[in-house]
């Protein structure tokens, strides 16, 4: 029994899916009946091998793909009843390749494009653009053509162009791919700030280190099913699940597994924690 729009409690969940199925035109079923609740302010990572349905799931959340059956509720309303442009106000989606979005002659114009499409007034647009440029630290390059920037900057521009629409939820598809360690860390720091300010972040990624250090909740996808929904500790201590979805835990978790016989717990997800545990088992030295 699929609950109707008004039976979904609105207070905590910004997105809910009920028995969500999606089949591509060629007959490939990418999602096999997902039930997922995303709360306001979540920091969620969706992980899984290539072709596991991560991107398909994300695209149903903002209406780019319409469910074959089942329902996606956004703020309690069925997404199928709303246009992508309406949903964009609530669910922002930054594509993997920033070059698929950039077309304006200056960073500023690029960032303006979204809020202008949504019909905000001039002063609102200006304010939102300023906030987005500030959030992604693009002040220095705001007059430059986005296509002349480095990949890390181009990605920040494409994310800023989504943030400028002021969506409650921000979906980022592989945001750290192709960035060097510094750029990547910088971007993740900015996302943490946005999350702390109340934005719901959904990160699609292959990088388990990024997941371990940022997300509070992890969903593991495999063959169009959610095979695990847990916090990071639960996911990275479950080697069987990870193997099934061709994922590898971050190095620090692997090290903890190897050190199990010395009494190190299996749910370590950061270097600091490992150091702490080592000091403790080493007799407090």
């Amino acid at each position, binding site marked *: 029994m699929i609950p109707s729009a008004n039976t979904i409690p609105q207070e905590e969940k910004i997105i809910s899916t009920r028995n969500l199925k999606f089949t591509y035109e060629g007959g490939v079923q990418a999602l096999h009946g997902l039930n997922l609740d995303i709360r306001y302010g979540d920091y969620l990572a969706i992980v899984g091998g290539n072709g596991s349905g991560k991107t398909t799931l994300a695209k149903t959340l903002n209406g780019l793909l319409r469910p074959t059956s089942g329902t996606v509720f956004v703020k309690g309303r069925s997404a199928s009843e709303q246009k992508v442009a309406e949903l964009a106000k609530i669910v922002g989606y930054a594509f993997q390749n920033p070059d*698929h979005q950039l077309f304006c002659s200056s960073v500023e114009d690029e960032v303006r494009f979204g809020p202008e499409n949504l019909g905000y007034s001039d002063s609102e647009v200006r304010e939102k653009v300023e906030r987005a440029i500030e959030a992604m630290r693009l002040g220095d390059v705001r007059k430059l053509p986005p296509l002349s920037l480095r990949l890390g900057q181009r990605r920040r521009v494409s994310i800023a162009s989504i943030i400028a629409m002021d969506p409650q939820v921000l979906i980022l598809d592989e945001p750290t791919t192709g960035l060097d360690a510094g750029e990547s860390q910088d971007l993740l720091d900015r996302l943490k700030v946005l999350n702390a300010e109340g934005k719901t972040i959904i990160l699609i990624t292959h990088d388990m280190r990024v997941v371990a250090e940022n997300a509070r909740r992890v969903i593991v996808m495999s063959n169009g099913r959610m095979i695990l929904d847990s916090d990071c500790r639960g996911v990275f201590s479950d080697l069987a699940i990870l193997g099934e979805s061709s994922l590898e835990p971050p190095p620090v978790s692997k090290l903890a597994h190897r050190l199990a016989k010395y009494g190190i717990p299996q749910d370590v997800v950061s270097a600091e924690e490992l150091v702490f545990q080592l000091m403790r088992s080493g007799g407090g030295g």
Partner: protein
Amino acid sequence: MGGFIDLYTEADTFLHRMDPRVKIVSVLMLSLLAFVLTNLNLLLLLLAFIFLLLLLARATMSRTLFALKFVFRFMVLIVILWPIFDPSGSPVLASLGPIKITEPAIWRGVTSAVRVGCLATVWYILMFTTSQRDLVRALVKLGVRFDFGLTLAISLRFLPTFGALIDSIKDAQRARGLELSKGGLLKRSRNYVAVLVPTIVSALRTADTLSLALQSRAYGARADRTYLRDLTMRPSDYVALTVLVLLLVLPTFAKFVMQIDI
């Protein structure tokens, strides 16, 4: 999108095995034959022959219908429009102002529609029984310069890729609140700038990378390149070629030399 651009369907029939050069020449000859024949019955016979080939090549019904759907619409259009624009002949069946619908014009429309059907189907057979690689290799063997052949091969290869790229870019911009079909004609064409610019930029980036990849594999190092696989004519290819040459030459001879009205 991919299925629409590359019609090739893997199978093991005599048409799939036939030398691609013979197939190209045969298709050209059958196309010429469709123009030589003016008699509706003979054209229908040719269409039946071409459909027989379609069956022998084990065409999948759904893909064939999909590919020929547009042609069928075009044929219907010809049958409807021909009599309206061709007032010659008698008897006149109906008239409305300057428009006269005559019986011979209707038959001429039907004849032309059948001819278009023959042409489309015969070229469709070539496309779905010949892989793009074989097609290009045959063209090069028939005397087309290798770089032209390679250009054609690359274009065909990248068409579905660009189809997917455009879809992805459209989605990316829709996620920014762009509504492509909103507004008047001017507004709508301006909407497409947001799709067109990233498409062109991505295409140029791809082309640039591709040219480097070709060079790093020694493309153009020697003029006299060799080929791993060569095309060789088998006895069955000669038989097929002979049959098709006769099929074109006999009616042509009958029409233009013996002045038989066909």
